[in-house]
């Protein structure tokens, strides 16, 4: 039985069948959440982090997967989400300690975490909407470089905007709102948003433009506009991931949102396969799992009478090696550009 079918949501097809990929992914996430709930607290924390990465990778997928344009801006949008929720949810007395120069209208805010998280998503989307307007006219490598610059700019601004972000100092005292149930629900939410979007007519047009820009323009598709929509939605989901991250750690520091985070998220998307939602989900979970296994091995795991221990730093090398192997032997990623469907084939089109 072919579990994977070509990612090509058929708008005029059987409605029930079209929901199978979505339901499959939700089931996977719920199973991960349930399994983790039986584990120790430390393990739960690792799984929560994996689910937050999943939200961020799904956010990245919404733009990269549908438009085919690479984006390095993930950690910028996560930083925006994280700082937004920190500033509006921290207790006023904490803020007067960490951010004595904060403008008054922000200093008096004391929102519940959920509101802060949503606001974090909206702020990221707002900034993406403004910056995306000129950015989405670019294509290919220049668009990628522009998003990289965006990430660097956000990093530098947030790292020096002492009155609002505290600059290089950490912000502390955020509510530890994100537990396993919340992380699972947000992961499901991100998957649902990405799925609804990818089934939309606009996303179909965007994927068509990814495949053949000439034919897309000839069909009257407004590529720039649809890219922009995907970029803003992507920033919203990614911003929420950043806010969740802040409410998991309880602290926010700008160093967390830089190159290593962006590249980790991109690696997850590429390993899973950037052309399907299943790929984004599988990549986030697979690399989180691999990272965890390697981390344990670096610490040492007793197996029978041996103590299996790999030298420190080898984990990173193995991780890089995995990425390389995927790129060489499965360039479309683990999911191979397909969604989970559990059906035999797609009528006459199964030869693709």
């Amino acid at each position: 039985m072919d579990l994977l079918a070509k990612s090509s949501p058929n708008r005029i097809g059987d409605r029930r069948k079209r929901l199978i990929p979505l339901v499959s992914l939700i089931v996977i996430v719920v199973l991960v959440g349930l399994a983790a709930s039986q584990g120790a607290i430390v393990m739960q924390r690792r799984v929560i982090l994996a689910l937050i990465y999943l939200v961020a990778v799904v956010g990245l997928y919404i733009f990269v997967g549908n438009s085919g344009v690479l984006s390095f801006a993930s950690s910028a949008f996560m930083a925006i989400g994280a700082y937004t929720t920190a500033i509006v949810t921290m207790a006023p007395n904490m803020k007067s300690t960490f951010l004595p120069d904060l403008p008054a209208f922000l200093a008096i805010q004391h929102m519940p975490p959920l509101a802060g998280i949503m606001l974090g998503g909206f702020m990221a989307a707002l900034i993406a909407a403004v910056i995306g307007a000129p950015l989405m006219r670019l294509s290919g490598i220049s668009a990628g470089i522009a998003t990289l610059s965006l990430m660097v700019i956000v990093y530098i601004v947030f790292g020096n905007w002492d009155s609002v972000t505290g600059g290089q100092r950490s912000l502390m005292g955020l509510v530890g709102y994100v537990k396993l149930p919340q992380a699972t629900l947000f992961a499901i939410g991100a998957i649902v948003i990405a799925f609804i979007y990818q089934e939309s007519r606009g996303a179909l047009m965007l994927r068509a433009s990814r495949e053949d820009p000439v034919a897309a323009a000839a069909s009257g598709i407004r590529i720039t506009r649809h890219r922009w929509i995907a970029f803003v939605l992507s920033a919203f989901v990614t911003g929420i991931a950043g806010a969740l991250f802040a409410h998991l750690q309880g602290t926010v520091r700008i160093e967390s949102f830089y190159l290593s985070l962006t590249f980790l998220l991109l690696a997850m998307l590429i390993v899973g396969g950037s052309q399907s939602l299943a790929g984004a989900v599988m990549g986030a979970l697979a690399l989180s799992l691999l990272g965890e296994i390697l981390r344990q091995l670096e610490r040492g795991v007793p197996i029978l009478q041996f103590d299996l221990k790999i030298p420190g730093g080898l984990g990173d090398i193995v991780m890089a090696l995995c990425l390389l192997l995927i790129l060489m032997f499965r360039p479309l990623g683990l999911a191979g550009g397909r969604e989970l469907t559990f059906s035999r084939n797609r009528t006459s089109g199964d030869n693709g």
Partner: protein
Amino acid sequence: MSDLLNVQNLSVRYGAIQAIENIDLTISEGQVVALIGPNGAGKSSLVNAIAGNVRGTSGDMTFLTSPLLGVKPEDRVRLGISLVPEGRHVFSGFSVLENLWLGATTRKDRVQARQEIEEFLELFPILGKRRDGLAGMLSGGEQQQLVIARALLAKPKLLMLDEPSLGLAPLVVDQVYDLIRDVRKRGISVLVVEQSTARCFEVADQVHVLNHGKISMSGTPAEMGDAARFEAAYFGVSGEIRT
């Protein structure tokens, strides 16, 4: 017949290279116009300039009453200009049905568009049979039919075809030209670009010969005379003339 497209003094320049120079061209409603010429004559540059795909154009273009310069390609589609680009640009990773659906992106009347898609699938049984199959798996001729059908779904007033018979078997080319006749019956104007003349002469009301970026000869097919002799005179390809 009133003018649909009016091109005046159109030039296209790619850096130092002058692709076409001071071209005047008028297409009336319901007219089939053929543009022929050898490789590098500037045929594709001309249709792409009309479709809005090239920069560096100068001159005047009017479609019905709208000036075209400065209008983006995707918005020219909305005005009623559809180009079938050279080389059969199907969305190969998408199904036949999705390809047709993507052709109707500019339409507001989606119910009507869906109905038309079903009609096309009946009109082209081969596409109907493979409606859920990937467009990339179709043969060259089938892809050409699909691309033309996709362009027609945008409800164009002017359909431009850039070398529609390139790389197709003669029998398949016949089908493509049957399709062009069918398009004309719908009252849609056609601008067809070809290197070979014979088939163009069968369908065209007006023929323009493009050479080195300029229109070197214009007229009805009858005025152009016998196709073979014409070809020989202009391209030096016919065996009987060669010494």
